[in-house]
């Protein structure tokens, strides 16, 4: 039955679609793809040039064209002298901690909302969901004032907590979607065996939530890794900056050598790109899961 249907469809596509329309569509898609790949090309070539090549202007040569001479030494210089390695480690610590806190908080809340029957679970869930519409700008001032009063400016914790709070609503949404699909009989069987709520959560539910953990982690990563506003306000010392804040600072400073800065950009972006190429399907799916269920 199924095969018959799909054969039918193919016949129709062959018959219906006109050749030149398909050619036009392909050309449009190709041009759009090139535009979207251009930043990568630009960044890599920028990283391989020296100052005269970057600053001298010619449309198809430098600064936007390919380098006339390749300066691989930029990478060495960027890594050994530039603070980019520090930014990198800071970013990993901050994003990593945010992922752990957000995922755990969302999982626990989701368990209480979807798997325990009580009167206000629906309303509590709705209140949490308001968090999706609240912009970071809403709380940046009071949080900043409190953080500076507690002398926590320039500490990772000062951005980890706000990041976690602002990723929470979406994480909860994703977790709810997954948790609701786990059959209730599992919990009941565990209760009959004498497990308490905590035990059920940690030994029955959590192990089944691996796909949800991956999805929330990826979504939270996308939220925090490139965040600039909070990072550049709360982390002002070079020692503590994340990649976006640090790179913004690098470009703002009046450097004489642009090549190594270009190389820093590549070093900063490369892990995301590699990660994306390896897991693109998964990343796309989690991204969709996050937004569609809203």
């Amino acid at each position: 039955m199924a095969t018959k249907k799909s054969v039918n469809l193919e016949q129709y596509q062959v018959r219906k679609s006109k050749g030149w329309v398909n050619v036009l569509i392909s050309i449009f898609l190709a041009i759009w793809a090139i535009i979207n790949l251009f930043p990568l090309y630009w960044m890599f070539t920028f990283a391989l040039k020296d100052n005269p090549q970057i600053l001298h202007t010619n449309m198809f040569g430098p600064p936007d064209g390919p380098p006339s001479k390749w300066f691989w030494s930029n990478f060495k210089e960027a890594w050994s002298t530039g603070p980019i390695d520090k930014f990198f480690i800071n970013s990993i610590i901050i994003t990593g901690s945010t992922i752990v806190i957000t995922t755990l908080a969302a999982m626990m809340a989701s368990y209480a909302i979807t798997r325990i029957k009580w009167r206000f679970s629906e309303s509590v869930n709705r209140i949490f969901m308001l968090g999706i519409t609240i912009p970071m700008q809403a709380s940046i001032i009071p949080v900043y004032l409190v953080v500076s009063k507690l002398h926590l400016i320039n500490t990772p914790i000062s951005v980890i907590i706000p990041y976690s709070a602002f990723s929470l609503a979406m994480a909860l949404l994703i977790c709810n979607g997954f948790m609701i699909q786990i059959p209730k009989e599992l919990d009941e069987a565990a209760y009959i065996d004498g497990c308490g709520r905590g035990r059920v959560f940690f030994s029955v539910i959590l192990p089944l939530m691996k796909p949800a953990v991956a999805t929330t982690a990826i979504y939270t990563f996308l939220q925090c890794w490139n965040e600039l506003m909070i990072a550049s306000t709360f982390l002002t010392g070079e020692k503590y900056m994340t990649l976006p804040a640090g790179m913004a600072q690098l470009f703002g400073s009046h450097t004489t050598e642009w090549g190594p800065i270009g190389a820093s950009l590549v070093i900063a972006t490369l892990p995301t790109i590699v990660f994306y190429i390896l897991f693109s399907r998964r990343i796309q799916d989690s991204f969709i899961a996050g937004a569609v269920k809203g």
Partner: protein
Amino acid sequence: MKSKKYDGLTIFLFLLPAIILFVGILVAPLISSFVNSFFEYKGFGAKTPVQFDNYRRLFDTNETWFKPSVVHALILAGLSVFVQLPLSLGLALLLGRGIKGERFFLSVNFLPVLISTVVIGQLWLKVFDSNGMVNALLRMVGYLKEGEDNIQWLADNGSGILLYSCFVPMLWQYVGYHMLLMYAGVKSVPTELREAAKIDGATDWQVDWHVVIPSMKQIIKVSVIFAVTGSLKSYDLIRIMAMDLKVKDAAVPSTVLMDFMSLRQEYGVASAVSVMLILLCFFFAITIGAVFKERD
């Protein structure tokens, strides 16, 4: 089973981490912003109550760019809904038909979302530089004649050109974002439905228009809400491309907010900006939701 009292405590304990984050970073600061917006506060010393003075100052164009900044954000929202989203929808529909290299195009088009805005901003600064690609291209096609000056795409000189130079990358970067959302919607249309329409003699375009788009209403609503609230909150690319929080031509509510907060340290006025921003976000989220509901 367990007694009710015991359950109440368990529920509370499970919700506790989320409640701490939610109340501590969202609810309490929101209330505090609201209260602060009626005071003059420099970050130290006493808070002086000033009633609606902060709001009055916001709407005084001699003092801040808040009013134009809201207009700018709304223009961006309009462009986003009527230019960016149709483009995203078109891409999603094309890719959803099962074109060759579907996954490749999907991945490549989403790529700009992942690249740091700092990198994207630097790239577009070079593209719009007075000696950059855009001017070189205009010269090549003869729009800029011999002896004519290059166009200053990035100058904050009252011509308003800077705003649109910033909008181009802002709109471009997130086309892939909305494309991916909508692609999910396209793919969720049951294959049987498509096939049935095709067997009845519908062309690809007719299937898209009469079958796929109507079933994507929920996703389009999400996209529109994200596009509008995203435009209201926009900050990063403007910050990088305008290079100055006191920018006039490309002022957006967030640059005004950051100007009052980090440069002038007038937390009362800054709070007033954030209150206005929250109200605008909620207003549009609710209105858009209602508009989509009415069309049911």
